[in-house]
């Protein structure tokens, strides 16, 4: 018996070895090395030179760093709740028992399939200052309340909302996750609430939402991790964070430092700050929601 256990353990290590190697080479090593680089002056062309806390001190005094950080957090504060609310509402609509539901589900899912580069180019055209199509559609409605559509791509106050609209358009992935969660809500619970005379809003508020709260938390955390790293779409749509650096995001500045200015040590320091922010926000949301998240069967 013991011999079998030993053989199995060996097999276990051998089968796991691609990942064990991959983990050390492509995850653990870069993670540790980037701490070291963050304390160095490093251009990749020459060996790193230890400079202590210089990179971190320079970051504190770097206006562009603060701009990029503020832009990213502000974008997250706008995009995360907007995406979450839209996804939950769509999932609830799609959970109704109506003919042709499979087709509707496909419709809302398809935008989330669009590759980032195509997404950026498509919306550059939709939001285009001169020939964009969104404002001519909105204006007849807005004109009635004496407003006109904003200059989405040219006005620093509207460039972030433009990106939020695009992210909401691509919310289909989260919709499917919520939908799967909704379908797991036991029907007896809903029926019991109905017997107690609960109306639709009460059923949603007191039964459905608590029951899918683990899914909401999961999507929130994935959303935080993804949103703080947002790169491709703003990089393509808004060169150098135009207009007025309003779309110059954290990951874009990090990329520029690393590959445009070859300040690899500086970029590594930014990378570690991002990692710590993600850890804090993830653990923070776990802690804050502890009392409000209900796990079935526990």
């Amino acid at each position, binding site marked *: 018996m013991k011999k079998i256990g030993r053989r199995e353990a060996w097999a276990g290590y051998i089968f796991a070895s*691609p990942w064990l190697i991959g983990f050390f080479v492509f995850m653990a090593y870069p993670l540790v090395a980037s701490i070291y680089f963050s304390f160095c002056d490093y251009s990749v062309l020459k060996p790193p030179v230890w400079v202590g806390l210089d990179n971190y001190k320079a970051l504190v005094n770097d206006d562009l760093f603060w701009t990029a950080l503020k832009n990213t957090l502000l974008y997250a504060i706008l995009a995360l709740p907007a995406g979450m609310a839209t996804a939950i509402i769509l999932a609830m609509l799609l959970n109704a028992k109506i003919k042709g539901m499979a087709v509707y589900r496909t419709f809302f899912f398809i935008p989330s399939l669009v590759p980032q580069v195509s997404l950026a180019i498509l919306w550059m055209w939709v939001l285009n200052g001169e020939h964009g199509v969104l404002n001519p559609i909105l204006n007849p409605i807005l004109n009635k309340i004496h407003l006109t559509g904003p200059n989405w791509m040219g006005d620093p106050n509207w460039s972030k909302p433009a990106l939020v609209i695009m992210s909401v358009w691509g919310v289909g992935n989260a919709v499917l996750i919520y939908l799967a969660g909704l379908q797991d809500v036991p029907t007896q619970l809903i029926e019991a609430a109905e017997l107690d005379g609960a109306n639709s809003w009460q059923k949603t508020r007191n039964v459905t939402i608590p029951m899918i709260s683990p899914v909401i938390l999961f999507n929130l955390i994935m959303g935080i991790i993804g949103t703080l790293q947002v790169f491709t779409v703003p990089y393509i749509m808004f060169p150098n964070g135009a207009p007025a650096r309003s779309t110059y995001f954290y990951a874009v500045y990090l990329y520029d430092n690393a590959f445009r200015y070859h300040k690899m040590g500086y970029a590594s320091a930014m990378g570690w700050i991002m990692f710590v922010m993600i850890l804090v926000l993830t653990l923070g949301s776990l802690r804050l929601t502890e009392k409000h998240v209900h796990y079935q069967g526990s």
Partner: protein
Amino acid sequence: MKSQHKENTLQKFLVQTALVVLSIVFLFPFAWMILTALKPLDETMTMPIKWIPSKFLWGNFLDAIKYGHESVGYYPFLVYARNSLVLCALIVSGTVASNSIVAYSFSRLRWPGRDLAFGITLATMMVPFPVLMVPTFALFRHLDWIGTYRPLWVPAWFGSAFSIFLLRQFFRTIPFELTEAAKIDGASEWRIFRTIVLPLSKAALAVVALFSFMGAWNDFLGPLIYLLDQKTFTLSLGLQFYQSQNGGTSWNLLMAASAMVIAPVIILFFFTQRLFIQGIAITGLKG
């Protein structure tokens, strides 16, 4: 009872209306993309908007494919498409091969430290790519791999947390009696993996293949960092380059090219819908 029934009908009607309106909103950008792609150039810029092209120029798609020449530093569409496909093939095969083997170990073999290793594996999903970017680049530069495809596909052959997790969840559901019987007959782990577990897991393997294809087809930052020569660019990179050179001019061709980058993904989705939805549900619920 009757009023309840009436309320339900009304509710259904409202839901249906909301779905129709929202569907139009969500699908509109695609319609606009295709309509623009079919227009003659001057009609893309008329104000008020000319919604329907005076004639449908399907040839625009052909022009977008043929556009480009070495002399302008932009290569024809099919060069980029071929590069993307080659890279996707290398990445997808590596992802499926390595992660299925690793997931077998995590789900069906017992070894000291396994659960700890799996916990750490899951935690790596939180590590943002930018924090790994610089040392990984330095490593590949040391190997003299910059400008080749290797930095983009070699790591795919060494496993990734997400795919390991997905496959492990699935492998665990295969009854242990099936493999125990083979073990007693003296079958090796490799044989059990190949002849019992893999054939029963085709759906899960397809999900992993699908997601890794989408990821590779979509990737922009990776190729942006590692590819130097125009001739080796992927579609994502080629399209961005074309846009940055000619943005604001021939929107009809740009929309045609974008549509052709999107199309393979959507076609793939239509053929694999059920798998897709299962895969996403697994990642969200069991997470």
